């Protein structure tokens, strides 16, 4: 919000150079029978922040991966600075002055910042010390505060992202592609990033800003291209559109106003802006409100959990979640969320403290016992933790219930009943798969999440733990996840939603706690969410007032 006034038109800057830095036309790319891009075009003018928006599968990331040389297009041409460009690898793209910062940062975590910046650059012109000096210059000039000598794995996600941007600038890029850059940032960090981007484009570099958050796109972009079904639908000037207009261009057939969930998923409504009372009321009224005095279904006390290195990552957390209550856990990635989620799911050893589900202390019990007690878990990394990628959808739906009497006959697994269950589940949860025997790893992210949710709900959970359940999902699948969360809540389930998406949290959670450095540093109840106050807590700034 705060920076929208800074985003004026920047036509004046284009005057010096007549060449368009980038023109892509007629780009098509298919993966097997799936047409990811069909006749897509895209162009940049010098010194603009160009928003590239659209749902998942709209092709925005694919288009930019083509530009960066990660995919070879089936057809189409790319002109950089007026010349035909044949980009066969990221190396070619970098040589042409194109840089990309991926959603998932690819860094050597044991390297220092300088080392990460220079790795892959040809030759060692002047060694690391010169490089460090240049990085300092760049970071000062563009407001990307980073210590060049710091070890990368000691940095926050925001700082690591700045390192990636510096790396691109260090290589002299004229085109900077940012893929969903705000996903892991606090509101303050987003503001800083936007300020840096303004300086970067003022120097003549063009920025492609891939996002599905309408609010942020409107705050930073000069022009916005909307992609749908693998091609560019239209490009609009920032000044010529507003949130609702842009959102309806993005989602098309979905009626934006009618679905507040989708609006929130798009970031249309800011945290604390619309959520209080009026919009929240219908959703809240439909659910049995947790009475303050009732016994908590999930009671966590003095929980200490270690990370894989044996260092305490969760340090003395207390939580109480009642039946039919959604507790949101906010925080920047790497502050103990994974460890907390896994501990609450019984998948990681509880070092100290207690986790009681309906009065039974499960600390120290086998994972199987936790599952039997009604704990269900939707992990953050669906591919790594959620499914058996090489195994069939049926196998995946059976996973965890393989010893259940419902699927046993004469001591053997009753595959006929399992397959029957699989077919009905696939239908009920609308899992898009070629067959129930297809490998689960081949499904799209949204369908994998449906599978994971279907399995979790199949156990009729009393406690549901979700971590970043909608990351990387398109709107329809996001809505599906939200609907399931509502359903769990209405069934009287205690829901713990651990997410880095404040919009998502403010939409779903009845109560929010902020996790910082493994501790709960703040709590806020529905209607009192303030994005900046939460952001300060997430960044580790203790409340002074």
């Amino acid at each position, binding site marked *: 919000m705060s920076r929208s006034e800074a985003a004026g038109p920047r036509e004046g800057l284009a005057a010096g150079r007549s060449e368009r830095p980038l023109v892509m036309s007629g780009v098509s790319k298919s993966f097997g029978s799936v047409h990811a891009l069909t006749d897509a075009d895209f162009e940049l003018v010098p010194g603009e922040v160009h928003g590239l928006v659209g749902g998942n599968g709209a092709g925005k990331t694919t288009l930019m991966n083509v530009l960066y040389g990660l995919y070879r297009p089936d057809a189409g041409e790319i002109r950089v600075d007026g010349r035909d460009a044949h980009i066969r690898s990221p190396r070619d793209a970098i040589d042409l002055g194109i840089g990309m910062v991926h*959603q998932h940062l690819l860094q050597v975590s044991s390297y220092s910042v300088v080392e990460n910046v220079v790795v892959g650059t040809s030759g060692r012109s002047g060694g690391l010390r010169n490089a460090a000096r240049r990085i300092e210059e760049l970071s000062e000039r563009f407001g990307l505060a980073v210590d060049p000598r710091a070890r990368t794995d000691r940095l926050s996600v925001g700082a690591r992202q700045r390192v990636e941007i510096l790396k691109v600038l260090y290589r002299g890029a004229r085109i900077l592609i940012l893929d969903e850059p705000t996903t892991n940032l606090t509101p303050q960090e987003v503001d800083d990033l936007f300020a840096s981007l303004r300086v970067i484009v003022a120097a003549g570099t063009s920025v492609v800003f891939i996002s599905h958050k309408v609010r942020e796109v409107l705050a930073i972009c000069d022009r916005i291209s909307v992609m749908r079904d693998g091609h560019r639908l239209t490009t609009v000037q920032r000044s010529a559109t507003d949130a609702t207009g842009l959102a309806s261009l993005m989602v098309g057939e979905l009626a934006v106003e009618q679905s507040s969930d989708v609006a929130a998923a798009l970031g249309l409504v800011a945290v604390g802006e619309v959520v209080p009372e009026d919009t929240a009321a219908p959703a809240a009224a439909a659910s049995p409100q947790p009475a303050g005095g009732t016994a908590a279904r999930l009671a966590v006390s003095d929980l200490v959990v270690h990370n894989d290195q044996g260092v305490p990552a969760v340090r003395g957390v207390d939580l109480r979640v009642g039946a039919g209550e959604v507790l949101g856990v906010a925080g920047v990635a790497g502050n103990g969320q994974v460890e907390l989620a896994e501990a609450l799911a019984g998948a990681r050893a509880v070092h100290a403290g207690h986790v009681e589900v309906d009065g039974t202390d499960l600390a120290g019990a086998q*994972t*199987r016992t936790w599952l039997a007690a009604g704990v269900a878990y939707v992990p953050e990394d669906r591919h*790594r933790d959620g499914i058996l990628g090489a195994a069939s959808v049926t196998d995946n739906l059976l996973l*965890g219930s393989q010893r259940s009497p419902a699927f046993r006959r004469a001591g053997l697994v009753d595959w006929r009943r399992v397959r029957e269950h699989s077919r009905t589940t696939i239908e009920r949860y609308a899992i898009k798969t070629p067959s129930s025997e297809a490998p689960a790893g081949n499904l*799209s992210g949204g369908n994998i999440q449906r599978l994971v949710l279907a399995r979790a709900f199949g156990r009729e959970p009393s406690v549901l733990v979700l971590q970043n359940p909608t990351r990387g999902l398109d709107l329809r699948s996001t809505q599906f996840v939200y609907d399931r969360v509502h359903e769990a809540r209405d069934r009287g389930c205690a829901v713990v939603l651990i997410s880095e998406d404040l919009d998502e949290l403010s939409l779903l959670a009845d109560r929010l706690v902020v996790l910082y450095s493994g501790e709960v540093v703040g709590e806020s109840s529905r209607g009192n969410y303030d994005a900046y106050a939460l952001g300060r807590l997430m960044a580790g700034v203790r409340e002074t007032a």
Partner: protein
Amino acid sequence: MSAPVLIEPDTAPAAPSRTVRLVRNLLPYILALVLAFVVAGIVIAVLGYDPVEAFRTIFSTSFRTGFGFTETLTKWVPLTLLALGFTIPLAVGKFNIGGEGQLIVGATAAAGVGIVYADLPAVVLMPLVLLAGVLAGVVWAGIAAFLMGRFGVNEILSTVLLNFVSFQVLDYAATELWSDPAAGVAATRGVGEGAELPTLGGPPGVHAGILLAGVVALATIVVTRRTAAGFELRAAGTNPRAAAINGIRVERVAVIALIVGGALGGLAGALEVAGVHGRAIEGMQSNFLLLGIIIGLIARGSALWVPVVAFGIAILEVGASSMQRTVGVPAEMVLIIEALILIFLLLSDVIAGRLARRVA
């Protein structure tokens, strides 16, 4: 340096039809077989022998004579058991390279029981002999499994090293404890009559242990495909993290799988004593360990295919010696062929992977 992050397309690709899949699955095997024999044929020709005659001898030995066929079936027993002893732990990503050690201690224990209680009737002695073999294999693999489960000791290392220990165990039994000076080789005395398995069919006939091996192979198929334990074994091997999160105790599954593998090795040793040699002999492990691994890998860990592949390898092994006798080609050539089959098969994986990526 940044590795490409390939974003998956949003729709699932269509599943190919059953026949297409079958052909696609079988094609690498056929190609690997043909290529292996072509290359081996060239080598044989270069060495100055007639490759056609050599191959004809290899394949005809097992089927032309009753003796050859019997020998093939007899070889099939330890090969199948050791291959399964390799593939079962492999399903959870654990490498049991200790098959020969497990076989040797199994044989030693079986021979020991057969010698010490030589006078017991067969009904009592035979089960005891087999049980001793199995238990010895369990203990032997159990050491490695314990070290792995408790201290994270790499099981490849421990199982291989235990092989060397087993040689000494057998050496002690064959030269000190129950040595038979008249045998001419380092071997134990013969076991009692009650510890010798009856012969089926023949003469020459194959020992009854083949039935037991068949039952074990069948049971392995049923357990891995139809039971919850088998499902957990597969799940833990496919994705240990997801399996653990869903309540499977992956470590324990791995420990048990390794111990089961050892039990099969021990059983193989006991059957060699009770069915073939009538005693434990140094060097009786032959190259069963290596062949078992090759079989397991060619079968790609499938319990269904292990017995089939083991039969094919047994044919090659039995044909090898007669090839040496009649054509003069060194018997080791067969090992080269087996290795080539495996290499070409693995190569086909790489090529198929490249092709798949090209299509994508």
